């Protein structure tokens, strides 16, 4: 243990602790801007670049960055001496002097870390006037970039390169013109970007924001010739409440359904329903591949899940030689869209073009997935608009509603009933657990002795287990972060030495609950943990917890699809992948 004083307070912390952590462990909150950590999720951005966290260390010539300086025995640290406050204020004033300061119209107004830092330091004017650095605006279908607002914290870069290994963003240009951007002046959409949007989730300012589709949805609702239906993803219901002052982890399923009706959606459905459908298709596909493997027929194993659109783009760009490994099942968003346009539209008595399907997703990549050409018929997308959790919150506030005041309401039928297996899709390991619940019972014909698969739960980035499938040892792995997914794909290239049968991949920290469309967590990983607890609480409270027991799912197979992985479901509920490695040519 190391003994030191911070602001004259004697403290003791383990060796290797930074001054910043030592201070925070002892109730002293040194402000930061570039530093960002997802505790326990193997993500830390610590470039030591912003210099906001500087502190005075007795005997040291210059000020020390608290985030990047380890404690030493006998150290005397001052976090708010006149010298420190003057330096800290001057540094923030400098950053503000190269910032558009259009806070009132900024997407991040109220959620901006530079804004709160300015308030906290009591900065009333910016003494420095001069040139401001600028870079062209750029947008994908998911991410909007206004680099004039970039403060060079490099969080996006770390997220993109270290966590996701997507390699789309890095520091370019020098000095005053330095900015984070794709290489070779590429647009983000032409780069190796997978639209996971985690750069947006970690951006402290408004440099990286989502593409706002609220107005399009409002216009569709206002159009009397359109019937507008909405689906809501599992992870949204455990995070939306945060936008309305509720504690992280509050479940707002019923209130959310009520709010959506009051916003004017004609029918309010649930992506959980199509998550159950996904399990039927994907689980059946897995069992099919396993049967072939057992019969000695050539088959691609391990099978990967395919519901995460950032992950799909990632393997299309990086592993075009392995496109036959992921499940061909569409994501729950995609399946819902297909069912809505093909099955539901005639039932509601509207043409497919007049049925507008809106998704509420915790994700920004879903905005890009929605627009994939193969998920459309004659140019009419199965899902017309995708809004994030944050956009839904904006829309609710815009329409003078408060989620707190909403009654509890149910989803509409027939695409509204779901099981516990579906809701856990929102957390890492959830798709695996849901698939196991169904695949086990379908495969063995027996009832699961224990419905909870604790092996697949929790925040480890890589989880492995061997599940006893009535004598057959099913080897599974669950990963989040595309960096971990990359390692799995590289293993497949090496011949799958660990003998995996089934691997679940979600791009975002902790799964969809940590998605880029969720309320900003500002690096507080406890918020993501609370959302995960809520997901499993919701599962435990469901009367039905296995997808293959969902009566609405059973009904649609009986009435429409026939059987999982049958002819019609192949046509509507499965997809195919494309070699998009040409997007990486420029950076090779």
């Amino acid at each position, binding site marked *: 243990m190391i003994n030191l004083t911070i602001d004259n307070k004697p403290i003791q912390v383990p060796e290797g602790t930074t001054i910043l952590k030592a201070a925070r462990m002892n109730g002293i909150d040194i402000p930061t801007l570039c530093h960002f950590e997802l505790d326990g999720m193997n993500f830390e951005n*610590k*470039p*030591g*670049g*912003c*210099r*906001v966290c*500087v502190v005075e260390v007795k005997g040291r010539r*210059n*000020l020390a*960055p608290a985030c*990047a300086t380890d404690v030493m025995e006998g150290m005397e640290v001052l976090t708010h001496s006149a*010298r420190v406050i*003057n*330096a800290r204020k*001057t*540094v923030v004033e*400098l*950053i503000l*002097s*190269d910032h558009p300061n259009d806070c009132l119209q900024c997407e991040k107004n109220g959620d901006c870390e530079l804004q709160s830092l300015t308030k906290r330091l009591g900065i009333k004017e910016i*003494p*420095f*006037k*001069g*040139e401001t650095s600028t870079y062209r605006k750029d947008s994908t279908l998911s991410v909007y970039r206004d680099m004039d607002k970039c*403060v*060079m914290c490099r969080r996006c870069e770390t997220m993109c390169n270290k966590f996701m290994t997507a390699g789309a963003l*890095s*520091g370019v*240009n*020098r*000095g*005053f*013109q*330095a900015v984070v951007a794709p290489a070779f002046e590429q647009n983000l959409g032409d780069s190796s970007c997978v639209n996971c949007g985690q750069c947006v989730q970690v951006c402290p300012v408004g440099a990286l924001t989502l593409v706002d589709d609220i107005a399009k949805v409002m216009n569709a609702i206002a159009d009397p010739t359109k019937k507008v239906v909405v689906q809501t993803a599992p992870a949204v219901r455990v995070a939306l409440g945060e936008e309305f002052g509720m504690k992280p982890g509050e479940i707002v399923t019923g209130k959310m359904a009520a709010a959506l009706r009051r916003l004017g959606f004609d029918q309010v459905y649930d992506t959980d329903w199509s998550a159950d459908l996904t399990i039927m298709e994907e689980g059946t596909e897995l069992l099919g591949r396993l049967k072939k493997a057992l019969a000695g027929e050539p088959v691609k194993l391990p099978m990967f899940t395919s519901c995460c659109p950032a992950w799909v783009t990632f393997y299309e760009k990086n592993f075009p030689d392995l496109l036959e490994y992921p499940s061909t099942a569409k994501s729950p968003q995609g399946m819902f869209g297909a069912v809505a346009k093909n099955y539901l539209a005639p039932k509601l008595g509207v043409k497919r073009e007049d049925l507008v399907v809106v998704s509420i997703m915790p994700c920004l990549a879903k905005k890009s997935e929605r627009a994939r050409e193969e998920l459309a018929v004659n140019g009419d997308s199965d899902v017309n608009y995708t809004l994030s959790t944050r956009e839904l919150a904006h829309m609710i506030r815009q329409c003078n509603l408060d989620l707190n005041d909403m009654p509890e309401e149910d989803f509409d039928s027939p695409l509204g009933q779901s099981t516990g297996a579906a809701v856990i899709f929102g957390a890492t390991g959830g798709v695996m657990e849901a698939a196991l619940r169904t695949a086990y019972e379908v495969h063995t014909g027996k009832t699961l002795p224990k419905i909870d698969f604790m092996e697949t739960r929790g925040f480890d980035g890589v989880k492995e287990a061997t599940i006893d499938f009535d004598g057959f040892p099913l080897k599974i792995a669950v990963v989040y972060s595309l960096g971990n997914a990359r390692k799995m794909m590289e293993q497949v290239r090496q011949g799958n030495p660990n003998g995996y049968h089934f691997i679940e991949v979600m791009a975002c920290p902790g799964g969809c609950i940590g998605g880029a469309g969720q309320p900003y967590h500002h690096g507080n990983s406890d918020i993501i943990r609370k959302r995960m607890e809520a997901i499993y609480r919701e599962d435990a409270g469901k009367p039905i917890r296995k997808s293959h027991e969902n009566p609405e799912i059973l009904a649609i197979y009986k009435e429409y699809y026939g059987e999982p992985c049958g002819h019609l479901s192949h046509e509507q509920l499965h997809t195919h992948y494309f070699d998009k490695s040409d997007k990486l040519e420029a950076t090779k």
Partner: protein
Amino acid sequence: MPPGRELEGQRGEPTLKPPFPAVSGYMGKPSNVNNVETFANVPVIITKGAAWFSSIGTEKSKGTKVFALAGQINNVGLIEVPMGITLREIIYEIGGGIKNGRQFKAVQTGGPSGGCLTAKHLDTAIDYDSLVAAGSMMGSGGMVVMDETSCMPAIAKFYLEFTCEESCGKCSPCRIGNKRLCEILEKITDGRGTMEDLQELRNLAAVIKDTALCGLGQTSPNPVLSTLDNFWDEYVEHVVDKKCRAGVCKKLMSYVIDREKCIGCGKCAKGCPVEAISRTDYTAPGHKLASMVIDSTKCIKCGACINNCKFGAISIQ
């Protein structure tokens, strides 16, 4: 700059220390990073022995040092001198004194990150510690000698422009701070500066020195701080009197024709590229033609008129 980040295919910018390169450098391996000069000393030390090497120089700075002597001095070039030599010996003995018999004003040591030393430092024995104590540094071994034709705020600005160019952009004080220092200096040398600017200059320079991430940013304000310390009056002249005593800051200069000396030949007007010179109604006693006058709003201070006037009637004020 850590060794080999570019060799590793990464963006060239400083990383956090520790670990230092000697522990973890190129590809994570212990790396020896030194200047060519240091390595060049090694064979001599091996051949002649450490005792011989230590016999040269001062207690804390042993051996010799190579300087690149440049500027307004008679003998320029690379010189190798024992540590502990004085600036006076270098400038007046080795350098052969100031050019054209002009007055010594300052010497910038250590390159753009160093500082400007003045006549009061001429007898300081030069070693690593004494230079730092005097507000400069050994740095690159550059030694630029300046005479009274050098304007110190302009010199500070010149060096800052270099640092702005060299900044990698990683840390905010260097990326934005140096740019702002440069802009304030531009304001001052353009004659738009205020006393508040001088205050801001000093505070900002001190904060950059105190907070920047790497050696470049921590030393980049040195030319500003050392010229503020040693040539404060010159800054005040720029700001209050709007005057540049060295005649360097063009925007602070005006070309004036002495109407009594002007014979009205008009050669200045013919040579003026912007037609800023015209004839007046006044003919000085003893002259036949009316004298000329310069319109300062049109004048670009190119100096063509002075060169064309054979009668010494035009001066810079």
